[in-house]
């Protein structure tokens, strides 16, 4: 399969190409109480570290704005005021390529006052509309905007646009109690467990689903009624979906977005010099595609035939992977 064919399939399109960059801005808001300050800082730094250490996002592309800069001067770029957020995003807009991906993650408290959803910061609190205006700085870039604060639901309608994945921790401004969503979103990137398709990457869709399910699990285990219903919108219609997925209204774009410093090893990065290996990767991809195509036909197929064909393809794929590893010198696992 040629590179052109792979690109034409669409699902690899949004992997950062060699020339593309991922930028991450984490904003920890006004805490109100020391325990929240501690928690927000821990989640924020964990996310930044995971982006850097685990997923290879260059340190220069990560900005962390926090309520108190003296808490961790080495990691905190600036104070999380609205002015500083504007400046930081302005800087990124100035240097980002047209196809770069920009992740903006807000961790803290939110509110709805005078009908406007806001994120609590030291100083003036920006509204969803303020953020919508600010994001105009990125007309071509792919944006992932996460508002993990309480009462954040109204941000979806305000920020929704094509080429954007917008995530909120709550489904409306009425869900005002403190949220757990950020904790598990960070956990999705910082620990194993969110990579459900085992492709060694965590998509935004996987991270979202991990977080929402773990949040629900905590509420359930504590016999509490769920008071935060996270939403994801990535089709630009301004309507979030609680259970996004490839077959749902939202989730198609988020499934292709990865907080990653580079594309996965393989044909796209041009890092493979051995043509035999490159060919094998291409064959592997082709088999994966065939599996995906078969799955799409599952409903219309006889079960036995489907299972037989699935097993044949999966065996071929397994053998191909084993060949690749052997050629790469890893040997069979």
């Amino acid at each position, binding site marked *: 399969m040629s590179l052109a064919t792979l690109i034409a399939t669409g699902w690899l399109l949004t992997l950062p190409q060699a020339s593309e960059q991922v930028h991450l801005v984490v904003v920890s808001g006004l805490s109100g109480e020391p325990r929240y300050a501690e928690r927000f800082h821990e989640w924020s730094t964990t996310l930044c570290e995971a982006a850097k250490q685990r997923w290879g996002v260059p340190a220069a592309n990560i900005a962390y704005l926090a309520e108190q800069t003296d808490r961790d001067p080495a990691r905190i770029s600036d104070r999380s005021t609205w002015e500083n957020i504007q400046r930081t995003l302005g800087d990124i807009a100035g240097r980002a390529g047209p196809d770069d991906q920009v992740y903006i993650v807000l961790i803290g408290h939110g509110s709805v006052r005078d009908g406007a959803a806001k994120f609590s910061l030291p100083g003036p609190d920006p509204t969803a509309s303020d953020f919508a205006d600010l994001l105009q700085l990125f007309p071509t870039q792919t944006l992932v905007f996460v508002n993990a604060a309480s009462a954040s639901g109204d941000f979806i309608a305000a920020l929704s646009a094509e080429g954007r994945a917008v995530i909120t921790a709550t489904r409306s401004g009425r869900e005002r109690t403190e949220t757990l969503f950020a904790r598990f979103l960070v956990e999705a990137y910082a620990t194993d467990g*969110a990579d459900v*398709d085992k492709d060694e990457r965590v998509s935004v869709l996987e991270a979202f689903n*991990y977080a929402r399910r773990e949040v629900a699990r905590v509420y*359930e285990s504590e016999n509490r009624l769920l008071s935060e219903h996270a939403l994801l919108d990535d089709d630009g219609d301004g309507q979030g979906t609680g259970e996004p997925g490839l077959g749902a209204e939202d989730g198609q774009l988020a499934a292709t977005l990865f907080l990653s410093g580079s594309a996965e090893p393989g044909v796209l990065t041009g890092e493979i010099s051995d043509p035999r290996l490159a060919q094998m990767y291409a064959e592997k991809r082709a088999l994966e595609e065939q599996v995906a195509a078969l799955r799409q036909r599952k409903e219309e197929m006889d079960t036995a035939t489907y299972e037989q064909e699935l097993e044949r393809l999966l*065996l071929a*794929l397994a053998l191909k*992977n*084993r060949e690749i590893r052997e050629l790469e010198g890893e040997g069979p*696992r």
Partner: protein
Amino acid sequence: MNLTRALSALVAMVLAFGALASPTSAQQIDEARVAFRTGRYEEAIDMFERLTRRDRSSVAASRGFSRALFDVGRYEDAADAARRFSRDNEDSPELQNSLGKALYAKGDLEEAEAAFERAVQGGASDAPLARLNLAVLSYERGERETAMEEFGRFIDVYNVGRDFTSEELTAVGTAIRYLRSDDWQYARDALRIYDEAIAADPANLDPRVEVGELFLEAYAGGEAAEAFEDVLQVNPSEPRALVGKARHLRFAGSPGAMETVQRSLEVNPNLVPARVFLAELLLELEEYKAAAQQIERALEVNPVSLEALSVMAATRFLQGDEAESEALRARVLELNPRYADLYVRLAETSARNRLYTKAVEFAQRAVELDERSWRGYAVLGVNELRVGAIDEGKGHLELAFENDPFDIWTKNTLDMLDTFEDYTEERNDLFIFVIDGKESELLSLYLADLAEEAYERLAEKYQYRAPTPIRVEVFRSHADFSVRTIGLIGLGALGVSFGPVIAMDSPSAREASEFNWGSTFWHELAHTFHLGLSDHRVPRWFSEGLAVHEERAARPGWGDDVSPSFLFAHLHEQLLPIGELNNGFARPTYPEQVIHSYYQASLVFDLIERDYGGQAIVAMLEGYRDGLSNEQVFEQVLATSVDEFNDVFFDYLEERFDGPLSALRPNLDLPPETFREGFQRGAELTDDPNNFLSQLGYGHSYVEQGSYDEAIPHLQRAKELFPEFAGSGSPYWYLALIHKEQGNLERAAAELAALTAINERDYQANLQLAEIREGLGDAAGAAEALKRTAYIYPFDMRLHVRLAELLSQSGDLQGVIRERRAVLALDPVDRAEAMYQLARAYYEAGELSSARRAILRVLEDAPSYEEAQELLLEIHARGGGTR
């Protein structure tokens, strides 16, 4: 209207009457009325009597006199007072209704009817009331159409719209109340008209009593209680309100029903509904002889009382005297061929005594007798659910609800049944498990095996196989479980066995450590065996105690344990004699008495098994099945009287707990409340080394100060004094913490092992034990501890992962598969990983076909998952591929 207004109205009424009649007599009549309406009955009787002597033509005085006599149960005197008035007043019809009521209360129905007729024909001022009484008489004879037509006429009368007296409005309300069996909306109308009656004369308590009774009929306990309380605040001795209150107390499961109805009987010893209700309470306590005595007294007053005859029929049935029961039923039907309440009462009484199949039969006959017996349909439906006829039960409940939507029990039950849509049913040869879909996969992993083991062990022990399949319903919501059991929320129990149907709380219905759902299931299944073997005639105390005894035999640590609270109750002579143990369950007199009764009853079977062998227990159950009484069963099987056994039992208790009892005696001066909910601190500390509370108290105190070395000897001593105490705050727990803190892991593990061998639901202790044992390299021991947690709170995925790993180390491959399935059942985010681990577990257990199926599911979702790919290749290499 509030009470103050009611009292003010009473005074206003007095003043108003004073203005209408001659000042002296009117004032005196009003004073007598006030005495009557405030419960000073003897005073009222004296006053009215004097007034009737002074003025033999005074209708008000004579009616007041007759009514006051009536309310204290002097029915013959009440009739005489009415007759006297008629004689003295040239056959005036004015007291004929009063005469009829008195005769009716004595069961002289024909004479009563004639008196009511005379009141109506003669145009007495209370003729509408007499007309109502005639309609009621027709209704009670089974002349339903005639009666309903007559009741319907009250609507027309009411619609004429003249100024009605409070008494007349009460009569209209009551007539309309009867009409509700044709159309439930009449219940609302009846309430409205009763309210008008109250407004017309706030001092008239009769409509308030009727309101309370209407609410009781609709299971609206709170409203009923409020109505009765309103009455009792004005007249604390109002006999019907006291009966109503007593019925409400039973309805709410609150203590005091027996005492309250007895208060009513103190005022009116001939109040038949009070005697009947008292008999029903006694039946619930399985005191059949005492119940029969109460009914006999009621029948002495009114030999044709349908309710008394019905309850007597139920009593004889419970006593095993089927012939007498049949004869009584025939007598009732002779009096009223359509009296469905006969069978409704038989059904309800049977159900309260756990005879659910009979309850269904009786309720079926009720609705056959009267197709409009909506209560009959409700009782039928609820009991069909109890014997597992779910569809039929639901159908009958829907019919009942459609025609009587006020019945809260029915509504709640239907709401609960709606939740079954989210439940899954899994069947095997012995059981049908009905579990909420969200947790059925997980719970079935443990319940299916446990249930089969329990069934086979109990079948072998009792040499009896309970009819199967047994339906096991596991409720995620305790409220739903409560409704399933009693029709209302608020039940404190964890499970219930109706025989062929078991209902219980899911572990998710409560916090971790609140209960052990495995032992709860075992307990309930034991009931199913006891009910089946005894044909549902086993006394409650017997079955409860035996079920706890079975729990203890099931697994080390399962079942209730002795507590300081229990022993302290014994020292304070609060434990009940064996012959009265049912009272501990049905009519507890202090908060812990139910728990104490469970444990005490379980000790009875420890003793019987020790002294007579397990076969004696089976023989006792068979004795109950054959209709023997408690006393007869003890005599026949154990060759001892209940009283003699009681003495042996308490000697046994003293002997068995000699050490702990001695160690608690120094604190005998403490109030029993000191030990509420098991163990609590509060004892004054002394240096007495034989004082359990002091030793434990010092231990706790030193632990709190961080002085662990000083704490150890006290905790050790407390443990020696009361080694079976492993509840909250036990020496085992604190010693384990100290040893762990000091790095003595072996000793910490030993303490926790001892604790968990006694305490069935200490989640944290098992977790700690597993962790320590794992640290000590004891994988099998750690696994054992974690396995126990599955029956306490199985919803922590990490524990199943750990347990799978531990079981893998100890080579329990089937255990690994179960735990990996448990992880999957908990719906992990990383489903591919969980499924992969399950596939690997199958593979390692040699179950290649299952391994292949599982790994294909993994790779279908995660085709790039390298470990899974390798496992697929391994499976194929071992011949596990597609054939």
